[in-house]
Each structure stands twice: as C-alpha cells, then as structure tokens.
C-alpha cells in the first residue's frame, strides 16, 4: 500500500510522490542524482552513497530484480533513501532472487516513487545538491540546514571494516588497500592480480609495514574529513612504492600531495562521463584517447593548487574538471572515476594493469 509522500528540500521546495504506507519515519540526507540506466543494485550497495538520498533519473527502476550478493558492492544497501519515478513490481530475470521493493523493505530503506525525477534533477542541477527529507507530512518544517553535517567522516565508521583483512594469501608481493568505503569491485579487480591484499581501515597506519603498493579506495563524503588517511598517505608519498587512488582516493591523494579539493555544484554521478587522457609524455606521439567512465563523486581537485611535481592525466570533456592526476616522476597516480565499473562501462579497466606494471 502506498500513500502520499513528499521530498522536502532544504531550500523549501517540495516534490510529491508515493511512499509505503507504513514508512512513517522521517528520513534526512543529501539529495543526489545518478543518470545511469542500469546498475541500481550496484549503486545502492556502493558505500560512497552513505548518507545520501539517491535519485535515479532513469524512470524504471527494479526491472531485473535483485541479483545475488556476488554483484553487490558491499554487504548491504548504503544509500539513506531512494527516489524514483517508477519502482518495477513485475521484475524479471532468471538470475535474480527478489524484487527491489522487497529488498528495500528488508533493509529498512525508505523510498519514494511516482516522483517527477526529471524536474527534481533539473532543480538540483541548478541549485546544487542539497539536503532533503522524505516524509508523509507535506507541511512538516524541519530546519534542514541546522541538522548535523552529514557529509564525510561522520559516515565512515558505518561503512568500514574494523580491522585488517587479508586476501590472496598465496602471493608474496603485497598491496595495502585502504578502505574508505570500498566498492567490492575494486577488491575483485585487484584480486585478479598476483598480489597479497591487505585491506585496512581508513585510519590504519601502514607506513611502518612492508608493502609493494597502495590503493586508496572510494568512499563517502568530504575528502578533507579523512584526516588520518591523508596523514598516513603523506608518509607513503615519501617512498617510491606505487600508489593508486580511486575516486575519493584520488581526492585524498591530491590532499596528501598538498593540493586542495572543492565541492562540485551537483557532482558527477552516472555511467556516461567522457574523459580525455592528457598526453603525459610530450615526446610520445600517442594520439587523443577518450574513455567513457563510471562516476560517483561530489568533490573534485582544484587544479590551481596542484603542486608542480604533479600533473593532470585525465580531464572531463564536459566540464573540463580534473579526472586523474599523477606524479611527474614517482609511480603515484589516481583517477576520479571508477575503472572497476560496476555499475557502468568497463573502458578503463586497464588502469589496474597499469598499476600492476608499476609493481
């Protein structure tokens, strides 16, 4: 049973739709939109969305049900709430185990359907991502701006492992995988490489341990809140071991290198973000290379603050923002997008090979 529901934004605007009748809890979060047309299972389980109300711009969500946990990006749904135009009741796929509606109910994730998600998206695009709440009471007035800062580190404990985990024990060489809210596909991609992987919490100090390389994962919120991670990484940057940052990991890399980050108006969330590879070696005659990438981030690196010994490797073709950086001489590089895909295109999966080569 559905009853009327409302998404009230911090600027006072209201979008109406339907919510489950029994869903009377008040839900608050940062409202963001994703333009992908598939991959809702992967997105919902992506820890980077922790604390956010996710708006799907594609109108039909749940068509193929919920696949088994092997396709999840973590062990549970991390988004705080879901806003859709239509939640598919008649899902169909031989490999799926349940409907999206059942899954959301099981995990107690509030949602709203019947929303003009396009109008909402356009609003967020112009006004920027903002806080909002899903409620059954249209007239409810809660000062959203006053609520506790929901971004960044406040969510870290909820999405993280508490102590290190080891994978691929059979291998000699080892990588430190810093889990700031890791998408499991990054782990799955790394596990295909011949390295022992030590997955550590974001504030874990690995600088005194022997390792052959470091990967800094994606994660939710403001990169500046990851103070411990930045501190440890600064130490690692003094060494010559390869370091690979992904998404939030890229922002943390920049912060550790001495650059600054800023919040984008409405972020990049989708599977169609075009990135151009900047020619890194002026002597090489490599022609222009472009890739379609999967992205989910609200912050970016401020180019003006990038230290001289670093350079930009990837750039977003739409807004020219930085999508990847590397150290000019040392084996440190990072990308703002998700080379592990899931969801989204697999065009940049080769970056894992690149990391492998550096090792």
């Amino acid at each position: 049973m559905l009853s009327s529901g409302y998404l009230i934004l911090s600027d006072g605007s209201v979008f109406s739709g339907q919510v489950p009748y029994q869903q009377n809890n008040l839900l608050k979060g940062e409202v963001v939109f994703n333009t992908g047309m598939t991959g809702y299972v992967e997105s919902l389980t992506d820890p980077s969305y922790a604390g956010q109300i996710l708006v799907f711009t594609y109108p039909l969500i749940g068509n193929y049900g919920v696949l088994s946990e092997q396709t999840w990006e973590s062990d549970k749904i991390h988004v705080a709430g879901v806003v859709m135009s239509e939640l598919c009741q008649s899902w169909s796929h031989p490999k799926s185990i349940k409907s999206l509606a059942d899954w959301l109910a099981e995990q107690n994730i509030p949602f709203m359907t019947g929303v003009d998600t396009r109008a909402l998206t356009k609003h967020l695009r112009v006004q920027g991502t903002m806080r909002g709440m899903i409620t059954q009471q249209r007239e409810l007035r809660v000062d959203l701006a006053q609520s506790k800062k929901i971004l960044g580190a406040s969510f870290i404990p909820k999405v993280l492992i508490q102590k290190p985990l080891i994978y691929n024990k059979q291998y000699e060489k080892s990588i430190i995988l810093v889990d700031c809210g890791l998408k499991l596909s990054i782990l799955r991609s790394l596990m295909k490489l011949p390295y022992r992987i030590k997955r550590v919490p974001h504030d874990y100090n690995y600088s005194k341990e022997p390792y052959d390389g470091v990967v800094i994962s994606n994660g939710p919120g403001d990169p500046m809140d990851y103070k411990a991670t930045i501190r440890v990484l600064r130490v690692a940057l003094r060494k010559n071991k390869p370091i690979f940052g992904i998404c939030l990991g890229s922002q943390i890399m920049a912060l550790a290198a001495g650059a600054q980050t800023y919040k984008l108006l409405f972020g990049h969330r989708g599977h169609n973000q075009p990135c151009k590879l900047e020619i890194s070696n002026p002597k090489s005659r490599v022609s222009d290379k472009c890739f379609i990438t999967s992205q989910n981030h609200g912050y970016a690196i401020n180019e003006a603050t990038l230290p001289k010994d670093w350079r930009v490797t990837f750039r977003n073709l739409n807004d020219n923002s930085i999508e990847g950086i590397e150290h000019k001489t040392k084996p440190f590089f990072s990308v703002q997008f998700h080379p592990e895909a899931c969801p989204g295109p697999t065009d940049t999966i080769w970056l894992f090979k690149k990391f492998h080569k550096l090792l």
Partner: protein
Amino acid sequence: MSRNPKKVLILGSGGLRIGQAGEFDYSGSQAIKALKEEGIFTVLINPNIATVQTDADMADRVYFQPLNITTVTKIIEREKPDGILLSFGGQTALNLGLELNKIGIFKKFGVRVLGTPVETIKITEDRDLFKKALTKINILSPKSFAVYTVEEALRAASAIGYPVMMRAGYSLGGLGSGKIENKKQLKEKVHEAFQAVSQILIEEYLGGWKEIEYEVVRDKDNNTITVCNMENMDPMGIHTGESIVVAPSQTLTNEEYHSLRAVSIKIIQHLGVIGECNVQFALNSVTGEYRVIEVNARLSRSSALASKVTGYPLAFIATKLALGYKLHELKNSVTGTTSAFFEPALDYLAVKIPRWDLTKFKSSEHTIGSEMKSVGEVMALGRSFPEALQKAVRMLNVGCHGLTHHPFIFNNPLVEIGRATDRRLFAIYEVFRRGGTVEKVHKLSKIDPWFLWHIKHIQEFETRLRKTTLVKEQMLEAKKFGFSDKTIGHLKNLSENVVRRRRIALGVVPIVKQIDTLAGEFDAETNYLYTTYHGVKHDVEPLVKTPVIILGSGPYCIGSSVEFDWCAVNTTKTLRQCGKQMIMINSNPETVSTDFDCSDRLYFEELTLERIRDIADFEALNDGIMVSVGGQIANNMALPLAKAGYRLLGTSADAIDRAENRQKFSSMLHTLGVDQPEWEKVTNLAGAKRFAQKVGYPVLIRPSYILSGGAMNVVTNERDLQRYLGEAARLSPDHPVVISRFIMNAKELEIDGVADRGNIVIYAISEHIENAGVHSGDATIVLPPQRLYLETIRRAKNIARQIASALAITGSFNIQFIAKDNEIKVIECNLRASRSFPFVSKVTNHNFIEIATQAVLGIHQPVRYNTIDLDHVGVKSPQFSYNRLKGADSVAGVEMASTGEVACLGDNLLEAFYLSWLATEQSVKGKRLFLSIADDHKHKFIDEVRALHDRGWRIYTTKGTYAYFNEQGILLKRLHCIDNLKDLTVENMIKAGKIDLVVNIPSPHNNNDDARKIRRLAIDHHIPLVTNAETGTLLLRCLAEIDIKGFQPKSLQDFIQRAMLS
C-alpha cells in the same frame, strides 16, 4: 585533421522498399549537411525524387539516375569526385560500392572511400570472413556449417546439438528454412531442400534468446562509444525490423548491458570501422551466453531509430568522422556545449512498433518471422512502458485507440502467439483478457515476462477502470497507463470530448518534457519534445511567436510514404524563409522532419486528435494548424480539429469534407456540370447488385475516406461483388460503401496544383502510362504529358479551375481524371499535397509546397509558372517489394501495392521511362524474352515484338501468344506450360537463368494459376517482370531503340540550367 576531399559523391538508396525505407533519406540528408558545413562540393546519386536529400538546396549536384554500375561509373567519370560515401544509402549503396571497388573504378578515377574502409565492409558482408575475424578475437558467433550432403548435415547437427536451424539458400526467399527438432526431421527436410539447392547451412538454433542491438561509433583514433542499446521484445526468430523494440534495454542487468557493450566495442575496434555501425546480439539470460549475429558497417534502420531515441545525430557525426574528425573534437548537437564523445543517458524510454500492410498484398501470408515484411514503423516516447506502448499502438494508424481498444477479431489468439503474426501484440492482450497467464504466453512466445506482465497490468487496469468512478486519481492513473480519452470514454460510455473536458477540469494534462541526451545533467536548450503523464513540471514554456503547427505523415505505409515527409520538411523551410516559427508533430522515426533542427519545436508524438489538441492547447498562441502536408492521416484531422474550434491554415475543413465525402463531392460536381462515373452509395448487398446490373460490370467498390484504396476493388461479376463487399464494409464501419462504374481502357491523368482563395496559381498535368484501373500510386507517371490531346488538357484545366473556385481552395490540391473517347470524368479530388508533389516540383523546377505555403500564409504574389512546355520529360515509376513477400501476386490493380517510387528526367519519353524503369533496381541482362499476353492485349505488342525479333532477340512464348504472332508473321520460340513434364518449360527456363525478361500480361477477367506461378518464379529468381500492357510495350520499345551504352547521365542542375537558357 587529414586533408578534406574537395568533392564528395554520396550514393543514395533508391526507391523505398521493404527493408530499406525512409531512414536513408534521414541519413543521406544529414551527411550532405555535414559535408556542406565543411565547404565540400557534394554530388548525390539517388533516383528517389520524393526525398529531401535530392532537393536543389541540399547537394550541389543531384542525379536522378539508376544506381547501377554503368550509370554510376559514368557519373564518376564526369564529376571526378575525390571522395565517396558508401554507408548512407543502405544496402544498395554498400553493395554498389563494393562492386565498383572490385572492378577498380575507384582506383581508376582516384576516388577515396571515406569512413569505414572497403576491406572492413567486405568482412562484415561475408559470413565466412566475418566469423573468422570474430574468432580471432575470441568473440562468439552462432555455430554454423555449410553442408552439401545429407550425411554432412547429420554430422553437423549432432556436432551442434538439436534443435538446429536449417537454412536452404537465400535466393528462394527463405523457403525451406526452419527449426529442426531431431534426426528424423532433419533427414526429411534436408533431402527435400537438396532438390532445390546444392548448399544448406546447419546452424545453432537461437530461437527464444533475447535479441539486443548496440549502435557503436568509432573515430580514426580508436575512440569508441555506444550511443544506444535496444532490446527486441520479440526474441530471436523474428527479424529486428519485424520486432517491437524498446530502448534502452529493459531486462538486462548491468553486467549483461556492459559486457555486450564491451564486446561491441571490441569488434568495431578490431574491424576498424570509422563512423557508425550496428551490432546485433543473441543473449541467453539463463546461461549468460551471447552470440554476435550480425554487424552492419553502415547507417541502418536501427541507427536512424537510435538517433531519434537519443537525439544523437548519428549520420551527421558519422560523416564528420569519415572526414577525419575525432569524436571529442565534435560537439553534442543537443546541448551545444558538451562533447560528442559521450553516451546519451535517457530519462524516458522509447517503444518502436513496425507497421505492416500485409492486407494490401494479395495472397501474402500474415505470419512474421526471419524476413522483413513491415513497410514502416512508429516510435513512442514515455516515462513508463505502458504509456509508451499504448502511444505507439495509436501511432500505427491501424484503427487502434489503445492496446485494449483494437478492431481485430480473434477466434483463438493463442495460435497467433506461438506462430507470430502481424497482430501478435493484440493477441497477447486478448489471451490475458480471456484469463490466460503470463507463464503460458511466455512459454509460447519466449517474450520476457517483464513485457508480458506490463501488458497484463494494462489489461487488469482496464477491468478496474470499467468499475470505478472517474475521480482525479483514477483519471491520472489511466493516463499514466497510456489510455486515450477515447478509450476511457469507450469504457465509461462517454464521448471522447466529455472525457477530455472532465480530465482537464480535474487538472490532468500531459507534461511536456525535453529529450536532452543527458537526463537533465546539463542545461540543454533543446527543442526536441514529448509528452508524458509521469511528471508534474513542464520543461519548456509555450512558444510566444505564434508558431504554425504542422502535422507530419505518421508511419510509412502503402500509400503514405517519404513524399509526405518531403512536403512537411519543405513546409518548414518555407515558413522559416517567411520568418515564421513552426512546430512539427510526427511519430515516424524514419523521417527528416523529425530531425530536431528541422523545426523550431519537434513534438515526437501521436497524430491523434487528443494529442494534437493537447499540444495546440499548450502552445496556445499558435497561428493555426497545417493539415495539408502530412498525407491522409493529417488530412483526416481537419474536420474534427475544426469542430473542436481549432484554426486550420489553408482550405477550410468544410471544403475538405466536401471533397472527401463522396455524396457531397458528387452533388457539387453535378451542380458544376462536371462529369463523373456513375456511382451509388449502398448500405446493403441488394443495393449493390441492383446498381451493378444497371451500369454493367466491372464495377469499382470503395469505402469513403480512403487511403491508398484500402479495400478498394474492381469486381467483374456478382459472386466477387458479394465477397468483396464484406471486406470493404469491415474496413470502414462509420462510412457506407461506394460503388461506381469502372470504365475500361480509359486514360488516366491528374492535376497537382495550388490555389489561392479559389484561384489556381500553379498546376501540373501528369499522364499515367497505364490505363485506368491501376492505382495512381502504382502507376507510371509522365510529366509533361506526351500523349494527351490538347483538348483533354484544356478541359481538365477548366474543371480544376471550377473545383478550386467552388471549394475556395487555398493551398494544395490534386484531382484525378479519366479520359476516354474525348470525354473526361473526375474520379477523385484531394485538398492536400499529394504523393506526386515532390515529383512535379522537381520536374517543373517550381516548388509546389513553397507556393502552397505562401498561399496559405496569404503572401503569394501572382506569377506565371511554366509547367507544360518543358525541354525534358520526367517519368515516375513505382517500386515494388514483391520479392520480400512470399506468395504475393504482383499484378498492379486498384489497390496500391508499391512501397516506393523513383523518377528520372530525360530528353524524351523513352529515355526518361527507361531510366526510371532501370532505377527500380531492374535491368535486362541479355536478349532473351519470355512473352505471354492475354488475348485483349496481344494486338498492342505487334510492332514492338517485331522490332525486337528483327534485332536478334530470342523471344519465347506459350501456345496462345505463339499462335497469334505466327499469324502476324513473327515466328517466336514456343515453350511448354508450367506443369508440363517436358524439358523446355517456362519454369525450367526461368530456373536455369535462361530468360532475361518476363512480360506476362494477364487478362482482367481471368487470372489463371499458371500465369501467377510464372510471375512468382520471375520474382523469386530476380528476373525483371512486366505485367501491364502499356508499360510492357513502352519497355520493349526502349529495348529496341535505346542505346544505353552511349547514354550520358545528366544532373538535375543540367536540366534546370538548360531550361533557364532556353
């Protein structure tokens, strides 16, 4: 940037036919625009005169010439282009390009093939090479073996595993192909097939796998994107052109979507395509296996659809890439700011449904399968599947007001689900209505339950709607489910208008949304729009500069084709020149009018009264609606729109009704003293019989408000009269049937014209080569007339003048006449642009649409136009698609059956006629003719047969014709009849390829089975066939008199220039 070519030749696709339709006008037109933007001189060869791409303001030079080796070579020799585009004219252009390349023409004249290299095209066109190329990069295609014996077939089948697919050669129209379940069946079928062919393919059976397509774009630097993917609702086994298609895919997981995407990219990068390309997959969702079915290294029907689905101008971008641009150097045309290197994100979905016209082809089967039979398609956009699906159903214009509100009668709908027919979608609904389950339908059809559940929900909602009161909530839900006001009214026993009023009072109105390629992520000033009920906020404000609303053509079907798109596009061009804004409404993705840069606003929407009103109400400050350029669908809107209080531009709705309504039209002619064949409106069989007895057989039967003579027929006796009356009456229940005297051996002529407040400002008289009785859409038409008496012309002109004045015509009109024994009678009058408008405009070099639009706007300045005294002759020939339709008979009649047309210009009738005939993809390869002529026509052929005989032709014939010509002193070679077991039968000669042309002229009274079989044989063996006495004699004269080798092709511009100098 590599060096740009200076002059580029583009090969068009010729006349529209099944499998190759208006989509190539879209792709060719975009290519020309992209080249012109670079300052490149463009030369186009395309005999399809009704296209936008062949307009004088498009390519710098246009050749209305046959697309064959000889002609194209001559044009290359003359024009000396340094580049050529092969991928914009469908399979015709691609095959022609490969052939020209093979015989070294490109090399000889220094022509560079732009875009995808010929070597790559070759690989994609050759099954073996293609398979090898894929295997090399570990990409899977269906297992397949070519076998030559029964034993080999059995071995192949057991290697693959049953069931297998058997294919017995392509030349026989898929005859003998099918699913084989076991060894015993295979033995039987293979044995049978080897009677007819020497090679059989035994293939992996993929029936029931999902069919998925990707549209891929790659630049010369290997940057590759997939612009769109699409999922066929009808799984493997039904041709994608025959399938209902959704975009993007709906039932694919992220993993499936992106692994197939990655495979597409890998293939295209490996093959080295530069530009656009389509990859088709079969996908088994249970096992996760896939197979690559096909790669089309050219613009295709699917790429046209993908362009319209996403707003990404594939053909335009492909042209730029062919010139050497890289994707990221180009801009996204929709946003104008972001990069063309991106993949569109949709926040809506598109549903495409094919449009069939199988009832128009006598004796053609209604089942659909691996061969294409549809003649057009519609695309609907919405924010839910039911919304888009029901929109698409209405767009088809086959009498459905929604999925649940259709005119079809099913005895056993289950039969048409397992063995799919052109109305399977409706059969599925019927099964659900009668209590059938999703499981059952899925088992029979293999259609994914996702689609079936939605159809079932529509059906269930219909039941609920019947019982509930129409409060706001119910009304909104009904609209979200895609129900039309008319259907809601039907269920609630209310009129459409009452439902509409109540709906608007409840505040339930459609919301206007933009197609912006990026799901709202970036600001896009796009004018590409659709409507939905799944929304609350309009994306745009109404236009304020009083735009004109133009109704487009809707789906292509027999009788309404690319010519009406030409009319619509030329209307926008003229309006723009006049400083007016315009809004286009159309539902057909195979068109130029639905390119969003063609109009100020494009609504990709239904051409239904409800939706046109919705749009006109939203755009409240419009200047009026143009119903006269979109063909019959648009024209039929005139009266209802006017009654609802909307302003029409041009001739009044009342006048349109007076021309369309036979009773009113006839009494008007009577008052004017204009002659017409005797007719009567009958409501029962007895009345019809009485009339036929009075005027004598044959009589012509037709319902009023006709389009391409739907259910029209000539009957020669009472028994046929009885049979056909049922058919005609069913087609048009709201209108009584009209029966009229059919005049034999009369000439037919027509006037296309434009009038301004009742005064004719321009007209063109064309003459049919065939005698009356052949539908004007199937007739060969000559302009200016070559064999009409001046007296006839003068009389026709005077009648036109009287009618124009009586109906106070402002804008386009077309009047058809028959002339016999110095008498002239009016048989039809349409107050709209006709099928022949592009033809007469291009032959006379006066744009009739431009003039009509000026007249409609009230700004036409009187000028004298010369349309009779021309230095050249134009001949328009019908393009038929019989070789696509198993079992269809090929004699043209009062029911239109051609799918397209071509036209050529020449210095005289013979030259123009012959070129035009060649341009319908026919050619006479040698001097061996088979002749069989019904008694009534034999005498017409004496001179021609003698001439050919004298020139050394081997002329074969059967008994009757042999005897007749023997009497005339011409000794022909006699063959036995078809079922004769002796060696020299017609059948054997045709099968052995020993005949180069078949002339078979049946009698109107007696159409025997042998003759029908001979015609079918000729078609199935790709031997040119002529079935009409008048075109037959003319063609034989051409063969006797024209030296095609010495012929020099002239361009449209050559003819225009000569006319201006004289």
